[in-house]
């Protein structure tokens, strides 16, 4: 009853109703506009905060990226500097190597190789990448020489630079002075079977073992590095050879002479001298029974299931001087298939 009378009174005396409606509309309009502005500001702030968070994460990833480039080794061939190194990811995030810079401190020249992006040099945390031999990275520096001193650094995709730490120079020089200028890498010793009359099977990987079959014929692959303290280039002539003798079978001596091999494993003749610049590491193939040419080496049945000693006889020139070195140490066991 009371409500009904209030309602009637309201409609009978409508003075001020327009003010009320106007105020309500104005307040509503202001509320809508200010809410819009407020919500928009909030959304923009959210976007900015998101970008700031991403930015901080990017920086954190960069700080957590830690790559070590050790066992650095430089060798020069023409205008090309070959850099060997071992990359270890000791950080907490995966990393990608995109560039290698080399600075020739002797010449005061520099070069880089940014095509290594295509090599996909990616390292997960804890992963180790060996950039040796065929995997070594080359950088062109016109006029660079094997006796020059180099500095190198890798660049990661996050913009970090990783200096290449060189192998301990003093120890190597002392070893080179003591036993000769060339060093043999035991871990990469391998033998090859043939895939045809003059083509090595599975080249350059071969078979990494110190147990070798008597038949069929085999060839040897040995990785050598030039550590001449005077930083000269060593050139090997056709008399460089692998010499094998059997203590249990005196008088049986077998020779495998050095040969030239194409990238597909094909042996080419006649032999042309192979050079190793200072600190250059190279896989050399010993396959021929005769020097300077090629014929397969057969192992006689008399030495089956016998151990033997392998010596590496290296002959040629170092710089303008004569060079000769005998590297022993490898032992083999010849088994019968």
């Amino acid at each position, binding site marked *: 009853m009371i409500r009904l009378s209030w309602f009637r009174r309201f409609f009978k005396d409508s003075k001020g109703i*327009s003010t009320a409606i*106007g105020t309500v*509309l*104005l307040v509503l*309009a*202001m509320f809508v*506009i*200010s809410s*819009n*502005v407020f919500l*928009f*500001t909030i959304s*923009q*702030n959210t*976007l*900015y905060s998101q*970008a*700031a968070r*991403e*930015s901080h994460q*990017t920086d954190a990833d*960069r700080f957590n990226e830690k790559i070590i480039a050790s066992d650095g080794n430089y060798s020069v061939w023409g205008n090309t500097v070959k850099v060997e190194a071992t990359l270890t990811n000791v950080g907490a995030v995966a990393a990608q190597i*995109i*560039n290698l*810079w080399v600075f020739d401190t002797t010449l005061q020249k*520099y070069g*880089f190789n*940014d095509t290594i992006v295509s090599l996909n040099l990616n390292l997960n945390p804890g992963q180790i990448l060996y950039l040796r031999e065929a995997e070594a990275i080359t950088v062109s520096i016109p006029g660079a020489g094997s006796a020059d001193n180099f500095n190198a650094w890798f*660049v990661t*995709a*996050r*913009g*970090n*630079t990783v200096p290449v730490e060189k192998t301990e120079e003093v120890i190597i020089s002392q070893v080179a002075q003591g036993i000769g200028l060339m060093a043999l890498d035991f871990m990469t010793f391998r033998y090859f079977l043939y895939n045809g009359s003059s083509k090595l099977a599975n080249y350059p990987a071969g078979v990494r073992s110190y147990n070798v079959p008597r038949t069929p014929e085999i060839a040897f692959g040995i990785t050598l590095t030039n550590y001449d303290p005077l930083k000269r280039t060593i050139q090997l002539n056709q008399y460089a050879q692998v010499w094998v003798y059997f203590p249990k079978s005196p008088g049986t001596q077998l020779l495998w002479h050095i040969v030239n091999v194409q990238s597909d494993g094909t042996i080419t003749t006649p032999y042309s001298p192979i050079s190793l610049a200072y600190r250059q590491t190279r896989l050399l193939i010993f396959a021929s029974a005769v020097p300077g040419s090629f014929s397969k080496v057969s192992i006689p049945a008399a030495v089956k299931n016998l151990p033997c000693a392998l010596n590496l006889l290296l002959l040629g020139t170092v710089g303008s001087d004569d060079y000769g070195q005998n590297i022993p140490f490898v032992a083999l066991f010849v088994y019968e298939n």
Partner: protein
Amino acid sequence: MYIGRTHMLVRRISKTIFNNKKAESYVISAVILAGVSIALGFAVLAWAQSRSSDYESELSETMRDETAKLRERLAVEYVVYNNVTREIKIYLLNWGTIDDVEIQTIHIRRDTWNLPISTFTLKSLNCTQEILDLDVGEEGCIVIPSIDLVGGYYYVRVVTVRGAVFDSTFVV
């Protein structure tokens, strides 16, 4: 019957209104007042809407610029000064997450000496082809010609068009 009644009602009302001059002026003034109020209300609403829209677009633009600036990252791979050609080469990498990073100014600084430079060219990494900006993952080379530096330790500051700043050092 019904139409006749309605017709009579309309005639009576119009007679009352048009015969009563006082009532007529009330109605007209009420209509004018209401019209002005509504028009004014809409004008204020439109103005407020446009102000808020301007504010939103300004804020949006500022936020976009700031966000883009936040996403910019440049790393200096190598800086070299050639005292024969008297030029500095700065090798840069865009490792951020945004394309089109343009360089505005380079500052070369040593102790209190500071040289802002804006006359330089941004080129591809091998310093041959001129480029406008650096996209994500792209490397470039900035060549600063005709500059005389004495031996020492220098700071280099790269300022982008978006306002981000990146520092590095080099030795002459």
